[in-house]
């Protein structure tokens, strides 16, 4: 606790040793402020189609952040996050469609449901490692569309046809249309969630989560409760991805079982690796990749779209083996060395 508090007291200028740190922090804050300002300007200058696409990028980024908390920071592998995304989306759709709940209340509900399911799934996951955990989560991803189609639940889930969701209306005092409102709503949720994740990682719990990833035996020896932290991380990770799913349901205004197959999980995994495992801003880059690169490949050649996508993916992995975040870190380190010499 003490070390955290020391940092928060903002280290006065009288302490020359600390200055570079605080300067770097302000630099980072500046970048974040500029990025938020730019993001806020997008719907005012871009077409509604681009606005919608950027909304989707943010939603994917949030889902990837959920996966990153589990895989990147806690070292637990998951191919099952499409299930949590789907669960969040369906929670929102069912609440809005069957119970007329206002859309903004469905987000906490989706988060809570996914947290509970994620936490419970984390319990058996404790016994499984690496590939075996991958298989278990993979089973979850494959089971989800089947459960959503299951005929006994049809009254709720709408079966194979899925459910239609009303797109949220902008508040009447704002002179903007539905797509713009959806964009700002998503942006606000994303900002809160990303800030919360950054704080979590910097906290005592965050250090415990990362210690488990780096060396579980040493972490246990230091008094970290492995089972508790691993299951809680599973829950929080599912919560993030579930909220992304809820936003996704609002954005697309429709949910159907076959939108949440194993391929969604694979897309999220690709986004995670391309953005940078263990990097929070990298998640948004991953979202960008997941949304745009298949479209680019498709526009180059319809027949060979998959092949082109694969080639682009391979090239990116060859150039940036540690993802975009690793690449940025590499470039910055090079620059620093260049400046020193």
């Amino acid at each position: 606790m003490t070390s955290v508090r020391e940092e928060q007291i903002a280290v006065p200028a009288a302490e020359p040793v600390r200055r570079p740190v605080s300067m770097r922090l302000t630099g980072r804050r500046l970048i974040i402020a500029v990025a938020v300002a730019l993001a806020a300007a997008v719907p005012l200058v871009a077409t509604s189609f681009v606005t919608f696409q950027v909304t989707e990028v943010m939603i994917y980024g949030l889902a990837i952040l959920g996966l990153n908390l589990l895989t990147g920071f806690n070292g637990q592998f998951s191919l099952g996050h499409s299930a949590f995304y789907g669960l969040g989306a369906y929670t929102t759709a069912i609440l809005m469609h069957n119970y007329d709940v206002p859309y903004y209340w469905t987000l906490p509900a989706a988060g809570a449901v996914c947290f509970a399911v994620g936490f419970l799934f984390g319990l058996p996951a404790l016994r499984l490692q690496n590939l075996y955990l991958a298989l278990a989560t993979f089973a979850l991803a494959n089971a989800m569309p089947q459960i959503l189609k299951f005929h006994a639940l049809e009254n709720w889930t709408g079966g194979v046809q899925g459910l239609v969701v009303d797109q949220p209306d902008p508040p009447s005092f704002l002179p903007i249309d539905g797509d713009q409102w959806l964009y700002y709503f998503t942006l606000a949720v994303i900002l809160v969630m990303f800030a919360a994740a950054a704080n979590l990682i910097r906290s005592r719990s965050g250090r415990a989560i990362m210690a488990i990833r780096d060396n579980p035996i040493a972490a246990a020896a230091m008094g970290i409760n492995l089972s508790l932290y691993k299951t809680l991380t599973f829950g929080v990770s599912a919560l993030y991805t579930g909220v992304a799913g809820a936003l996704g349901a609002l954005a697309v205004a429709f949910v159907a079982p076959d939108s949440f197959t194993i391929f969604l999980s694979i897309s999220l995994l690709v986004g995670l690796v391309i953005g940078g495992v263990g990097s929070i801003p990298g998640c948004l880059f991953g979202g960008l990749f997941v949304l745009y690169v298949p479209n680019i490949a498709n526009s180059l050649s319809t027949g060979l779209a998959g092949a082109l996508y694969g080639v682009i993916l391979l090239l990116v992995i060859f150039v940036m083996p540690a993802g975009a975040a690793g690449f940025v870190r590499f470039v910055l380190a090079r620059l620093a060395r260049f400046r020193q010499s």
Partner: protein
Amino acid sequence: MELLLQQVMAGLANGAIYACMALAVVMIYQAIDHLNFAQGEMAMFSTFIAWQLMAWGLPYWVAFAAAAVVSFIAGVLIDRVLFRPVQKAPILSQIVAFIALFSILNSSAGQIWDYTIKSFPTPFGHRSLFGGTLIDTHEAGMIGVTLVMLALLYLFFRGTRLGLAMRAAAANPESARLVGIRVGWMTALGWGMAAAIGAVAGMLIAPVVFLEPNMMLGVLLYGFAGAVLGGLTSPGGAVAGGFAVGIIENLAGTFIPYVGRELKLTIALALIVIVLMFRPSGVFGTRVVSRV
């Protein structure tokens, strides 16, 4: 009892497909230490090559052998050209490289041979066996070929110098290099063998599921499940696991009332996860103990 026996037989027939694939999965796992997500697509591509050779008029066995040899060479090349450069990259990046390979093979096969379903010949015929309708000569032949491949692999790994060298390279690369084994080439050889086994699996599976670029999708999933259930360190376990998955899938669909038919994949996978919770290294796998 009659029904149970019938369903077990039908499960064995499905299981033979999964066992074939599981064997290829374990083979590559032994060589490179992780699962190859593109394994199914490699097998599919090899099968298309065999189909093309037959379309050009070659007899079945010539095309069969040629496809296996071409796949072997292609497997070695994929390792040397594509996976050498990312060998030092983080594991997750390598997995994404597999996904890329998957996408490339799937899409190219669709472009070259299009997506229409093609039938693939079998040397065993489709006559019924034991007078029943559940298992035919082709499925029996497939089970036979799988078991023969398993026996050959066992002899290769236990009885030859090369097999020993490959095992050493996979188990402990540094020490293996110190005693003069060329670890890089052993890995490439593992890729080649996995590709060739995959090709044989593909050519045996194609008469049942028909030939098209997405034919391997479901099969690979069950193959993975079988391999992990049996234990990734044991080829025999993987084959047994593949058969078990086929049988579980069929029995769950038949005997669990109400939910069984619709959720049979879910039930099979849930069962596998439960088994893994009690045997975390697979039923026949050896436990890997790591040094602190």
